[in-house]
């Protein structure tokens, strides 16, 4: 007759306690020959150092690779996000890198309704309404 336990695995609540930046690596590729990489080459020579210094939690990896340039974000949940930066100027690339660093790697949601604006793992805080527990004098009668 003893009580038995059902095993569980504790789930993460990033931001409660410690906060771990979800983006672990940003890879930038460029080509030394192609014109579509011109903006990327400018970005690498002028802006990258400052951005990398601003985000010490993220590893910035630069790869010479033929073809159009891309930037790729890798996340702690194992997902990747790739953005093509073909023929883009350094300012645009900067914006996209900022976007990658601020995301969590989750799939983008289509829309959330009014009920989904707060996601909770805790049990219902105010309980469930019950007709059995209302005062009998005000109870609805058929």
């Amino acid at each position, binding site marked *: 007759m003893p009580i038995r336990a*059902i095993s569980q695995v*504790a789930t993460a609540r990033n931001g409660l306690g*410690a906060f771990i930046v979800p983006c672990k690596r940003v890879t930038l590729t460029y080509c030394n020959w192609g014109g579509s990489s011109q903006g990327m080459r400018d970005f690498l020579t002028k802006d990258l150092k400052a951005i990398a210094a601003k985000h010490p939690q993220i*590893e910035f990896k630069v790869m010479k690779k033929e073809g159009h340039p891309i930037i790729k974000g890798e996340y702690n949940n194992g997902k990747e996000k790739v953005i093509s930066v073909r023929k883009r100027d350094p300012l645009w690339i900067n914006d996209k890198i900022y976007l990658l660093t601020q995301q969590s790697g989750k799939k983008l949601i289509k829309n959330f309704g009014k009920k989904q604006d707060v996601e909770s793992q805790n049990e219902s805080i105010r309980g469930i309404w019950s007709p*059995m527990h209302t005062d009998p004098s005000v109870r609805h009668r058929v």
Partner: protein
Amino acid sequence: MSILRIVQKGIRSPNVLSRSFTVSKQNWTYAPSVVTPKFIVPADLTSFGDYKRAGSQIPVTNADAAKAPGLVALHARLQLPESFELATLARSLTFIAEGNQYADNAGMALFGKNLVKYYVTEYLMVHYPRLPAVILRAALNAYTGEETLAQIAREWGVEADNKSEMEKFLVDEPKEFSLGRLSFDKVDTNPERGVTVVEGGVNVQQAAFASVVKSVIAGVHAHNGADAAKQFIHDHVISRHIDISQMFQFQFPTRELTNLCSRQSLEPPVARLLAETGRLTVSPVFVIGIFSGSSKLGEGQGNSLLEAKSRAAVNALKNYYLYRPIDPVVPSDPKYDGSLIDGSAVVI
């Protein structure tokens, strides 16, 4: 994706005789079991400082570790203080294996395991002082089991070093880059894709990932002191979410409740019908309360009287076992005044 076919014996129906399970795709199979460390034991067995590990492993230097971008980024991601050396972090990422070049984290992981188990047990004992021992163990396992710790390491962005030496050579990768990844012994031979070999009850990959978390905790204790380690455990382990109320499985809740009341010298529990509707319909609802003397212990609702009664008993049991004191203080806190132990029978 390969399919692992498992035939379940004892089920006679031909439709369910063979069941197929898909197994998650993995790149490698695992080494049979974790390597056990060998020690150089000093003549005086209690001179703990003279114990050494057998083998010719060398320590990682901080200068080498600083050349590994993954390692530096991980250090920053975990918000470790400056005084936490990069070399220690590199050692935390070296799981015990045959032929390791650098010193491994076996001792650190054992140290960290003891720390994390103690602090989480203490937290649970104080915050849920009436939890039954089985549930306490299960809750501790939910926080500090290998599976959870391995998951924490993955969420930190720790990566396995699964590139072969040839691949590293071809991309001309500096040797130090490997220090930023978790190294453990994996057999490269791949007899069948998609099969996870777990022998001797040890999943080496999981053990390796879990060892990272334990070792980092040990490192925080070494470099930043006991209080910092405790804070680190609270931030990274105890801050996670478990639902203890869903961990209970009662076989005979009413009998359990009767036993509990007799242990606590309370009057025997009595079930009473509080409200009902539609008794003669297809969907009746009964609300039953369980009382000991004049105090209500629990309440449950159900479509039959029996169901409502047993739910009420489960509710009463959970109300008792999941009691939480207001503003509890843990024993490791200097403000602790020993008010934890109360007079109840089996609890403490």
